[in-house]
């Protein structure tokens, strides 16, 4: 979660979360990945009562055979899809309702509608209970019911102790069927979003993320668009109600439940509660138009920093692209892993950055954002940009070595078991595949796809998707402290991030 999002979340311990711990790496290590079951490197007597003198001598026995538990899929006659995942470890029941339609589908002059809806859906209460009454009811049971709006869907999720399920689930149903969107909570949510807008240029990483998305996807692309004061002020209660009517229909909903319940009994309850809702119109997905910015250098001036955020972006690929597997291996060896080229060369050997990494972007139903980024002190801004370009050039000209490719594949395949190590994770993946229309065994296909990747594949996709001449290079920094003129690296286009109070031209 980025800091802007965090600042809007009232219930989190913002301060402690931000400042109490210094981790070794800034990037979340998102390893995707399959046990080469029985890929024993050496055979040695099991647990010989001596200590190995080299890690290579240590026996790696076959991984314990393990069949992960897939959730049960139930499709109601009205089109609502339910996944039931039993987990009896703890006395909890959690659920998520995902509804098609999100900020990518909202009208440009009402940018922010989905986010506002995502807040007021819950805080605005239901026909019979105010949001405040729901707060009291739920908090006294240590239960949560929360709503949110994101790019392609809205969510209604809950968590409760098992024993409270029959009290908490009716709240979920009530919100689903009778939301009230009370005006006072719409106003409150607008205030919070306006504060978010006013604060969006405070932290450098917020600026880099937002502006580089605009460069990669096109400034008018709904995936990159941000709410403005003037779009926010035009959103009415009527808009939220209409959004709800348009989107919340059983055939636009995927529901996942996980926890300490009996599937048959839960299915019965859910059929009874949800089966009677009539089908609606399937939500039509808005067609996106991708118009990346012209390649070149873009500069956001920020006076109060001593470090530049450098972000190179381009349009990436879809996960359904047959090149996806080779791209994942490429990403791992280039800028994903701890010992990847970017980390080893830019951070470890040159000491130019703490946070550095990146790769070809992938997403389920639209091209992802290819992003290579780092933070470096102001006076090494130019050398850092050159160093990133050098790494790309080296890869394109010299290719990836067979050993590098093997190592990257090992990273992914040996850690593949972690895709299945919790029942919640398995459920979340299945729901994602259902939502985007991917095969339920996409992960298994992924593993098989990775296994087949060759060094030649990696070289081919590197040349295809890492195109230095196509990159937009965004620098957020204090240019008076740069050692050298950024213009020597190419034409510099200043980016104005002033927050408009009114609609431009009004």
């Amino acid at each position: 979660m980025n800091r802007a999002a965090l600042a809007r979340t009232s219930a989190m311990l913002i301060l402690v979360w931000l400042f109490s711990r210094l981790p070794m790496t800034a990037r979340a290590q998102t390893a995707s990945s399959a046990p080469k079951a029985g890929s024993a490197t050496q055979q040695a007597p099991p647990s010989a009562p001596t200590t190995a003198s080299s890690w290579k001598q240590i026996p790696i026995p076959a991984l314990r055979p393990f069949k992960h538990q897939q959730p049960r899929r139930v499709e109601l006659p009205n089109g609502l899809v339910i996944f039931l995942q039993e987990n009896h470890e703890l006395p909890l029941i959690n659920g998520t309702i995902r509804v098609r339609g999100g900020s990518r589908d909202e009208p440009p002059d009402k940018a922010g509608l989905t986010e506002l809806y995502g807040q007021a859906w819950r805080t605005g209460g239901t026909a019979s209970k105010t949001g405040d009454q729901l707060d009291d009811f739920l908090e006294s049971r240590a239960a949560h019911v929360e709503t949110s709006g994101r790019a392609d869907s809205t969510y209604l999720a809950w968590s409760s102790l098992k024993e409270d399920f029959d009290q908490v689930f009716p709240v979920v149903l009530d919100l689903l069927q009778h939301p009230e969107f009370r005006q006072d909570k719409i106003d409150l949510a607008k205030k919070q979003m306006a504060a978010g807008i006013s604060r969006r240029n405070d932290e450098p990483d917020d600026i880099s993320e937002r502006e580089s998305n605009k460069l990669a996807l096109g400034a008018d692309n709904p995936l990159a668009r941000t709410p403005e004061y003037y779009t926010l002020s035009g959103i009415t209660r009527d808009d939220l109600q209409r959004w709800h009517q348009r989107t919340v229909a059983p055939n636009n909903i995927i529901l996942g439940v996980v926890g300490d319940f009996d599937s048959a009994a839960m299915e019965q309850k859910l059929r009874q509660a949800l089966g009677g809702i009539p089908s609606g119109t399937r939500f039509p997905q808005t067609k996106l138009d991708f118009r990346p910015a012209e390649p070149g250098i873009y500069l956001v001036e920020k006076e109060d920093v001593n470090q530049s955020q450098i972000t190179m972006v381009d349009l990436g690929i879809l996960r359904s692209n047959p090149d996806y597997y080779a791209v994942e291996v490429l990403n791992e060896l280039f800028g994903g892993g701890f010992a990847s080229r970017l980390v080893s060369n830019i951070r470890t050997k040159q000491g130019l950055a703490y946070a550095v990494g990146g790769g070809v972007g992938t997403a389920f139903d639209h091209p992802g954002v290819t992003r290579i980024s780092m933070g470096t002190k102001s006076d090494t801004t130019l050398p850092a940009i050159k160093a990133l370009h050098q790494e790309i050039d080296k890869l394109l000209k010299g290719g990836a070595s067979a050993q590098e490719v093997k190592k990257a594949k090992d990273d992914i395949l040996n850690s593949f078991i972690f895709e299945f190590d919790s029942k919640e994770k398995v459920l979340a993946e299945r729901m994602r595949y259902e939502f985007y229309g991917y095969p339920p065994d996409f992960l298994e296909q992924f593993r098989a796809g990775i296994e087949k990747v060759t060094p030649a594949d990696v070289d081919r996709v590197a040349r295809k998707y890492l195109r230095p001449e196509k990159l937009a290079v965004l620098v957020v920094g204090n240019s008076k402290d740069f050692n050298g003129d950024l213009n020597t690296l190419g034409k510099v286009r200043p980016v104005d991030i002033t927050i408009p109070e009114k609609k431009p031209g009004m």
Partner: protein
Amino acid sequence: MRLFMKIAVRTLLAFVLVSATVLSAQDIASFEKRITTKKLANGLTVIIMERPEAPVFSFFTHVDAGSAQEVQGITGLAHMFEHMAFKGTEKIGTKNFAAEKAALAKVEQAYAAYLKENLKEVGRDPKKVAQLEQEWRKAIEAADAYVIPNEFGEIVESQGGVGLNANTDWDETDYYYSFPENRLELWAYLESERFLHPVMREFYKERDVVMEERRMRTDSSPQGRLIEQFLAAAYTAHPYGRPVVGWPSDLRAFSATDAQNFYRKYYVPSNMVVTVVGDVKAEKALPIIERYFGRIPAGPAPEPLRTQEPPQRAQREVVLQDKSQPLYVEGYHRPNAKDPDDAVYDVLADLLSKGRTSRLYRSLVRDKQIAVAAEGGSFPGAKYPSLFYFFAVPAKGKTAEDMAAPIHEEIGKLKTQDVSDEELKSIKTRAKADLIRGLGDNQGLALQLGEYQARYGDWRELFRQIQRIEAVTKADIRRVANKTFTAENRTVGRIETASSSPAPAGAQKGVQP
């Protein structure tokens, strides 16, 4: 209940009785049954929890040393060593250790000569400094020739490790990742070797990396700048007032030898707890862990910290004129986590901050609509007397100063009016539910068990905290609020929006006020 009685876990009895509606006795008993604790001959504590949900395990190595163990001149060193623990060992990360060792010794000699000249207060010769710096850099180059960069991380990742990372804060340093279950012995080797034979290779390059970390988190971030200044004002003597990442001048000065000395003093087995949670069998895993970690030689327990923060006698205030939106924080000294009133502070944090029923949310965000977020809690540490803070993010058009009066109004209520029965009951229910929510994940469990074991000498304290929260009364809350939230015990930090702000003062030059 029968099963529980048979196992006779006396320590958990009270907990089970108060929370019988939430966690059944059987659940607790099974928890106890799955945990094995052993103190090895060298003093290292090992905790193993069997949780065979999937064929993986996570571990958490807790070292009871953080930046509070530093003295002026070496601030940032605990965190720096944490980074060095990823640089490999005498066998990992090197092409030829014997030659590398000699080369690293030369680096240290050259660095000491350079530093001595560079820091001379009288008679510093810039030419000599430049020459000594060059010699030092040459020595580094010679040593770097033997390095295989990031081999340690490469082994962990290619063997299927995920979540490889570490943390340093004021109180402690922690190392963790997760492996497939068939790599337990490999893990035991790697993790013990890392603390048995660490090598300070690439130290000075890594110092540059940490400087970049400082620029990112502190110098270039308004919130980072505020918190650093706020803590520096709140503490005059105790090291909680110093940044974990270190002051820039110290980061530019300390040496690999300093890091090695810090390690020798604090990374002794009796100061460490290793916790493993996942698909492991204690009877099989313990001998392996004992064999590998038992190799770390015992050492004398580090001396306890002497410095205590003297009582604050007057309100302190730091105001940053920054080119960013306003922020407000105020803090009051409170006792450490072992104080009998610790649970009262936990209750206060929940009452003030947790969810939309919390008092600060309802007052500042929902009703007065002057803030978009507001919270209270304990920070920056737990081991030593810490702060109870209030933090507010002003709504658009409101100033940082606007936050003070409504926060003090809430504090006033805590002092003069009893909390309601419903509020107190609700807090106690949430404490139990939150505990349960944290028990379903290997890495989270390893972290909690390890931290409670290290902090209290018994992982069961994780559960006993519920008992202590259960015992908190309305009178306790009023008493602690009156004792803690006084004007002379208060430090205030504000960001006020300036039209044009100076660069992060001194950060570039390494001078800090």
